[in-house]
């Protein structure tokens, strides 16, 4: 492991950040293999050092004057060896983990409870066999690309974020070290692909996602989730909100992610730490709503998924979920599924 440039160093740098927390302050070239050193664990869990020098460094007692000099760069190098902002970063990280974990758990809990009580939202009128083109091939490609990246980046990100609490008990420290390593690599490799994917998502789904007055009515009716029919155009208020939510958090994730993954661009450590905090927060916000989206798009609402696979939806589904859109496209309804799919593929939606 040489290489002073590019992703190799960054990979390690980010990895080290996550796994060793404060230990990075003292050493830039930590061997990942020492991931299980007791010091690393102690420090990253934020326990008090009680004046002891962290890690396996020789010497027993800290000297506040000495450390001040180290911090300011006076003790030997031109560069400060200790970067105080790291303390700030570590103060953010803990709460982010705690509250972030709770947010995601609550979202999953709400979905489970809703599903237990109300079950799958069926097409009330049953399927008619008549379909309407809904999503173009370009839209579907853009959607599934970002969906695949969501899964890869989401899982690897969660492993990096919560693996210490969730995975160590299951796989042991050695096992988690491997998972942390693979998650880091996957996250860094797939991360940059997320940026063009977000841009493609924005371009292909922008039309029809502007908020309008009638969206208020949809909100008043609880989005149709509680037995009251809520009218909507091609996208309802929930879908529109999710679109903008995904785009905004996606932009935040992209910008902060690039800052962290491209140290060659000259970002300072402090900038990266801020980026890391924003990245974590944005990821939790993105995932929390994303999980809900995955639920309604698959098992939550019957007939929704095929719009994103085949590109067409059943007429009754359209009437029940997007009646205003249906009215505009009623003349396109056809029992010729192949023709409708071809029309959707051509982008005539």
């Amino acid at each position, binding site marked *: 492991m040489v290489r002073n440039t590019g*992703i190799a160093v960054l990979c390690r740098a980010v990895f080290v950040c996550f796994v060793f927390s404060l230990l990075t302050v003292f050493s830039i070239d930590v061997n*990942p293999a020492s991931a299980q050193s007791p010091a690393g664990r102690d420090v990253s869990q934020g326990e008090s050092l009680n004046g002891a020098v962290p890690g396996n460094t020789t010497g027993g007692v800290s000297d506040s004057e000495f450390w001040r000099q180290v911090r300011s760069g006076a003790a030997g190098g031109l560069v400060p060896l200790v970067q105080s902002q790291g303390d700030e970063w570590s103060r953010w990280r803990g709460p982010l983990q705690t509250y972030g974990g709770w947010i995601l758990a609550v979202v999953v809990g709400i979905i489970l409870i809703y599903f237990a009580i109300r079950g799958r939202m069926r097409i009330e009128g049953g399927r008619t066999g008549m379909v309407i083109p809904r999503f173009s091939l370009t839209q579907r*490609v853009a959607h*599934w690309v970002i969906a695949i990246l969501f899964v890869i980046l989401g899982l690897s990100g969660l492993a990096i974020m919560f693996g210490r609490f969730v995975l160590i008990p299951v796989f042991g420290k050695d096992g988690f070290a491997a998972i942390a*390593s693979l998650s880091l690599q996957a996250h860094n490799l797939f991360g940059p*692909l997320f940026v063009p994917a977000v841009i493609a998502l924005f371009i292909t789904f922008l039309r029809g996602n502007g908020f309008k007055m009638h969206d208020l009515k949809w909100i008043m009716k609880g989005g149709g989730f509680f037995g009251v029919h809520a009218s909507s155009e091609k996208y309802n208020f929930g879908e529109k909100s999710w679109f903008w939510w995904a785009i905004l958090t996606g932009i935040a994730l992209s910008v902060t992610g690039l800052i962290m993954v491209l140290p060659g661009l000259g970002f300072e450590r402090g900038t990266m730490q801020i980026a890391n905090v924003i990245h974590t927060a944005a990821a939790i916000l993105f995932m929390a709503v994303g999980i809900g989206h995955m639920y309604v798009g698959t098992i939550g609402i019957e007939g929704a998924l095929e719009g994103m*696979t*085949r590109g067409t939806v059943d007429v009754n589904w359209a009437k029940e979920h997007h009646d205003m859109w249906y009215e505009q496209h009623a003349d396109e309804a056809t029992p010729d599924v192949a023709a409708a*799919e071809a029309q959707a593929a051509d982008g005539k939606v």
Partner: protein
Amino acid sequence: MNDANQSGHAIPWFTDFAEGPLWYVAATVFVFGVLWRIVGLLALGRGEDKSVPKQSGMAGGIKAILLHSVPHGGFFTHTAFHVIAGYMFHIGLFALLFFAAPHVDFLRERVLGFGWTPLPDWAFIVAAQISFAGLILLWVRRVADPVIRRLKDAHDYIGSGLTFLVMLTGCFALQESRPVLAGIHMFTVDIWLIYFPFSRLMHAFTFLFSRYYTGAFYGRRGVTP
């Protein structure tokens, strides 16, 4: 691969297995399976064509091998997605397969006995990203395109899925710090190699013959389609 000493981790039995016995089985199945399939196809033979050729069939065959690598006949605007995503995937995969430093090491130590200059790390990561992007795009299209949905069978997904897994586990092992990760990568490679001769992955070899036969057919007619 065998960096147990560098990282201070014992090589787990799993990695030993994947890089040892299973690797030999997989390599054997791959080599003999591929040969069997190619020889089996070619041995079917073709009757002699007694028509008077306008031009050389062989020249036409070789021309077709090259020509069908690029869009021609005015189709590019219609097939740009396939062509671009296809090239992204294949070029990236080629770069990964033969120019990633660990792969060059592996080929030198375990297969060929000689090596060559690998790509620098950053280039190899970019190649991986391009390749993944291409594969995901092709995959997604397979799900969404009505024509491909009609043509597809399970092997389309198994083949591309296994290839994806091989690439993904390779990405997982990038840090080269954990022998078990290298072992998982090697395991998927072994499975992929065993599956290869029985699957559509064979197109990596059969494209030569398929294009050649067509090129020869057209070459005799003086046509380069």
